[in-house]
């Protein structure tokens, strides 16, 4: 059973065209068969998952498993809102809307936290899983801590959100028009991030170094490339993507950040990890995978208000259950050979 699934998977991997056609067909089916509100809400809810997953791909491909990506989402989300609030909601600074400044600052904060994670994992050789958990826990505490200082409450104040950006002409297209060309900036960021991530990973020098660094760092090292730098760059890049995801979600969808409990991110970073494992580290695959999980999330809302008597709490766990089902059916995605291991030049 397992083997057969594994083989089916290999077959898929061996026929990228067929796989692509298949996925495209499924997407098409989804577009035709579901209401528009569900599709747009799926797109919006996919933003933090997809971008965090793409970031996670880079870190893990380079050999650093970044389980702290949930933490990066949290810090970027709340710091972007605080930034907008401080700069002045609805205003602009130096000709740029404060919302965009908020996005920049959210990304920056996420990168700084990713840098801490990188130093700890790469230079101080911390166990990556433990360090990632620590980053998560620190962020869980930091979000309400900071917003309590700024707002006197674990929740931030509300701010205005990104509006739709309509691309003339293209937005007139059926279905794709309202989905892809008349939507919010963070959705464009997500789509661009997936394509850019794919290009970076598969077509550029850096992408090849990232892959080599995760599969066989020694090979990269002996080829004269500094593994340490590549891993740093990859982890920081995961900070950039997660930052875009967290800040984009906060500024585009949330408009405010609840810092209590699991915070408003509520485990989306962990779902992102499951997403890229499911997508076998393919950035565009991660985008499609995030639609799956986000779609389940909006399905839950849709089912409920449609009056189906499924217990709310149970419906809410649908995405989490499907992560497990997916992991079990797909089996363990082959991690990069050197993922989780420290590498020091000159070591054998």
């Amino acid at each position, binding site marked *: 059973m397992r083997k057969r699934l594994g083989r089916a998977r290999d077959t898929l991997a061996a026929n990228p065209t067929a796989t692509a056609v298949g996925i495209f067909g499924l997407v098409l089916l989804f577009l035709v068969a579901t209401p528009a509100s569900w599709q747009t809400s799926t797109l919006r809810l996919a933003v933090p998952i997809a971008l965090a997953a793409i970031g996670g791909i880079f870190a893990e491909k380079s050999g650093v498993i970044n389980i702290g990506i949930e933490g990066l989402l949290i810090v970027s989300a709340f710091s972007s809102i605080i930034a907008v609030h401080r700069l002045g909601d609805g205003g602009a600074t130096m000709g740029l809307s404060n919302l965009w400044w908020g996005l920049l600052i959210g990304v920056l904060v996420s990168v700084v936290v990713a840098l801490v994670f990188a130093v700890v994992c790469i230079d*101080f050789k911390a166990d990556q*899983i433990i360090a990632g958990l620590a980053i998560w826990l620190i962020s869980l505490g930091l979000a309400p801590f900071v917003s309590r*200082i700024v707002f006197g409450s674990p929740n931030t104040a509300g701010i205005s959100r990104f509006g739709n950006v309509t691309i003339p002409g293209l937005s007139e297209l059926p279905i794709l028009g309202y989905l892809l060309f008349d939507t919010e900036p963070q959705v464009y960021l997500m789509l661009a991030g997936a394509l850019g991530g794919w290009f970076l990973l598969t077509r550029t020098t850096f992408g090849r170094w990232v892959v080599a660094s995760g599969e066989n760092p020694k090979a990269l090292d002996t080829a004269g490339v500094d593994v340490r730098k590549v891993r740093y760059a990859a982890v920081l890049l995961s900070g950039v993507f997660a930052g875009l995801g967290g800040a984009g979600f906060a500024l585009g969808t949330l408009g405010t950040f609840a810092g209590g409990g699991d915070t408003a991110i509520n485990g989306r970073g962990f779902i992102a990890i499951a997403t890229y494992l499911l997508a076998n580290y393919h950035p565009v695959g991660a985008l499609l995978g995030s639609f799956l999980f986000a779609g389940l999330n909006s399905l839950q809302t849709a089912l409920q208000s449609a009056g189906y008597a499924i*217990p709310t709490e149970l419906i809410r766990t649908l995405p989490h259950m499907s992560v497990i089902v997916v992991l079990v059916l797909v*089996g363990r995605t082959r991690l990069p050979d050197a993922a989780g291991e420290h590498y020091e030049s000159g070591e054998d």
Partner: protein
Amino acid sequence: MNSGSGPMPDRIRRLLERLIQASVMERIAISVAALFAAVLVGGVLVFISGSFASCRSGLDVAGTTFCYNPMQVYYELFLGALGHPLEGGWSLTNYNLATTLQQTTLLIFAGLSVAVAFRAGLLNIGTQGQLVVGGLATAVTVVFAASIIPSGFVGTVVLIPIGVLAGAIGGGLYGAIPGVLKAYADANEVITTIMLNFIAVGITSTLLSWQFQDPESNNPRTEPIPEYAEIPTVPYIGFSGGMDFSLLALGFAIALMIGIAWLFARTSFGYELRTSGIQPAAAAYGGVNEKRMTVASMTLSGALGGIAGAFWVLMVHGSWLENVPSIGFDGIAVSVLAGNNPLGVGAAAFLFGILESGSNSIGTATDVPPELVGILTGLIILFVAMPEFFRMIGTRYIDVRPTEPARTDGGRAPADETTEDPRGADDA
């Protein structure tokens, strides 16, 4: 404890001493250093964040007003948790200390749960979920059993063990799920346990609203267990019942802690578990069925988490409530700080008990947000995770470089192991 073997022979004592000196001392040093580093970073954070807060009187530095005094925060955190022993009118059995020890007791169980899995090489992030499920199992079982078992002393003696057992079984079964998924479907346990934490919340609240909700209450909670089924306090010397802490529970936790330590050190199962954790291939070679060991250690880990839930119900609340506090996540911090050593879990649990209870004092006695404690917890884990950092600092000041054994025979010297892959095909 080991009744058959007579007095502990010298050699074994020597072995223990060496073990302690070699690795345990270093671990303790690193844990203590990590604690200090976290406190230091946290202090800086508190001080700096004080410049963003508003207050009537603060410290003015270069035009900026700093509102928070880190010293005061830590004073409240650490001494507040003990009931301010340096101030007048202190009694040993005070409420704050009771809260600290109550948290310590729960964290010992949760920490042991995490430690057992980590030692087996399984990153069980799911203690929280196992605790939630185990707690509900306890509450429901005790409420049901109370209806058929006489009340009073008999009820206490029968119901408490039944409740703890129910928690252990509930948590154990829930812990076995990721074990089975890992062993037979190769599903990464870190992801599955995190997801199962979310699912545990969903399932338990569904069960609650479907069947077990206390009709008397507006809160999502089960029917309260009878008072005689709560863990009794020790008369005269103990803390009073209103403090929701019993020395008996702490005693049980410590006994369990020693039991797990003994399991690791002195039993075949413990040996196999540790071997599986360090080198799964060697364990398989040594006749350990990896899959079964994975399931067994996850089950044991889950059972310990379930016991934590049981005590949360039986000692603290007298019923199961939705939104269980994050004892299970704190258990990870406890175990990591303890280096996954069962005996270390006791000390680490006490420290985190202080943090938990001290956060109340921070919240009431200072203006600093009590969420600081969550940040401190994360920082401690972060620093413990990077022993290399402290080794680097250590070697800068003291020469503690381990003495590498020189070439001991005509064979391959250790240094060559670093230059040539030891698994190499070296035909002589």
